[in-house]
């Protein structure tokens, strides 16, 4: 039996008194795209840096292709391709010089290296910019070079930290397509993201909040854990959401399913909302600013698991 491409076992890490990561375990198979979804400050970057071998875990361990990173760091590094959120290219070197240097770092040289560089320049449509200094490239182009660089030694595992940072929507679609074809070719792709759309494209998602892995499943399965539809009601009175939630609960009882209050919004989960919404609106005339009905999104999953809206979590966690 082949070992998983990535296997994390109870990874923990704290900085001083602050626990950045607590007991995170998961595994990623070859050919799988795995997204770590969470607000900024939720522990994604710490986990990414541990997996990239930049930071030793405080406790726990992980393996790449069955090789323990603590015991065989060099063998593990050879198998990892790493795309950082911040640029890692030398701006004073050309695209080709950057790729050639990367080759030297991974023990590639001569004709095989040049052939591989040519191949990647073609895949990423960079041939006509190959001899340009990286500092003259646009953000999107430089990002393509970053990914090409990480793939130079054809790693079986690709790690990407917030890969769509600074990309326009078109380039984002290209990226999703690229990751899909890499996975089809057997590469294990692990990415961190705080964008729900990006996570949707993954085969499986791990939701990471406050250093803990709260949920781990396919996007469809995660959404199926919520009952049917989600009705979101925004109260007209900004501070009136809790009172409104109580009124809805007493008026509709068990029919209303699970009710949560997030800021000025009352969220109601229930199996079939199309008959519920007209009665809800009639029951509380003039009390709502807006009412929306939808299938559960990943954001609904996040709210159900944490009781917080994603962007609030973002703001709370990134505050110093």
């Amino acid at each position: 039996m082949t070992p998983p491409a990535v296997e994390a076992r109870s990874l923990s890490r704290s900085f001083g008194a602050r626990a950045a990561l607590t007991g995170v375990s998961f595994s990623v198979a070859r050919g799988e795209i795995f997204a770590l979804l969470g607000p900024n400050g939720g522990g994604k970057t710490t986990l990414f840096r541990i997996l990239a071998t930049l930071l030793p875990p405080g406790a726990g361990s992980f393996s790449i292709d069955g090789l323990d990173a603590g015991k065989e760091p060099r063998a593990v590094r050879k198998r990892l391709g790493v795309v950082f959120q911040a640029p890692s290219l030398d701006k004073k070197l050309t695209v080709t010089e950057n790729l050639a240097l990367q080759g030297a770092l991974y023990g590639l040289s001569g004709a095989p290296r040049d052939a591989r560089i040519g191949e990647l320049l073609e895949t990423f449509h960079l041939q006509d910019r190959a001899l340009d200094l990286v500092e003259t490239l646009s953000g999107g182009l430089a990002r393509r070079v970053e990914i090409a660089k990480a793939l130079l030694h054809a790693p079986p595992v690709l790690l990407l930290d917030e890969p769509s940072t600074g990309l326009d929507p078109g380039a984002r679609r290209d990226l999703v397509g690229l990751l899909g074809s890499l996975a089809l070719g057997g590469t294990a792709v692990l990415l961190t993201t705080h964008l729900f759309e990006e996570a949707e494209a993954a085969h499986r998602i791990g939701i990471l909040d406050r250093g803990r892995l709260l949920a781990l499943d396919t996007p469809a399965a995660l959404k199926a854990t919520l009952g049917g539809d989600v009705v979101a009601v925004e109260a007209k009175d900004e501070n009136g959401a809790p009172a409104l939630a109580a009124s809805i609960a007493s008026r509709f009882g068990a029919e209303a399913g699970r009710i949560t209050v997030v800021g000025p919004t009352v969220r109601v989960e229930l199996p079939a909302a199309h008959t519920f919404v007209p009665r809800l609106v009639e029951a509380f005339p003039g009390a709502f600013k807006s009412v929306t009905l939808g299938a559960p999104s990943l954001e609904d999953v996040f709210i159900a698991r944490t009781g917080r809206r994603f962007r609030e979590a973002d703001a709370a966690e990134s505050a110093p």
Partner: protein
Amino acid sequence: MSASLALARREIVRFLRQKSRVVGAVAPPLVMWILVGAGFKGSFREDSFGYFFPGTVVLVVLFAAIFATISVIEDRREGFLQGVLVSPVAPSSIALGKVLGGTVLGLIQGLPLLVLVPVAGLKADAAGLLTAAALLVVLAFALTALGFAIAWCLESTQGFHAIMNLFLIPMWLLSGAFFPVDGAPGWLRATMAVNPLTYAVAALRRALGGAAPAFASPALSFAVTIAFAAVTFGAAVAVVARFPAGPAGRSGPPLPEKP
């Protein structure tokens, strides 16, 4: 090894693409040489140009080493270094790449100054010039390794400037480059005698036909300079192995600036 050579090559390519750095390393010591030499001539010593010349060459090499290794801090801030740190390259190869690159840059800037030997009023034969060149190779390596070991542990280039003013420049001042060891008061003499740079300056001075303090014999001067290079390179490798993530490794993310 090929990784080190590739990293060293990068240093040289970057240097040649930033013209201002060439001027920045060579011009200030030369200007200082001319000003100090002219100012001291007549009032203090007739041979001032010749006297200050070896120290000037050492200062050019020191500045070159500082500029070459200060880039460690920029590499870290701009993100380049993180890509090197996740690669399978050993810490010793990372240090060697940077130090070799800095050594070559120091020599590109320091060696051509030897054509000024006659202008300075010094008399050196071919053997002396070759000895001087060999010494500069070892010294450039040692100073670059020293700068690297310091820069690796610092978060900002401002911090490096502080260390430079507080430590590296005094080290040069107390090397016999600026005033003779023999005339200094006792406590200063003792400091100068334990300063490894004193021996490099003495060896260079002697190779270029000048007089050097007796305690820094030719053999001892070379031995100390080589030992200086070995110790500083050992320190450079040790800091990379011990603190791979640099100064922020102790406090955790975030590291490089986000775009």
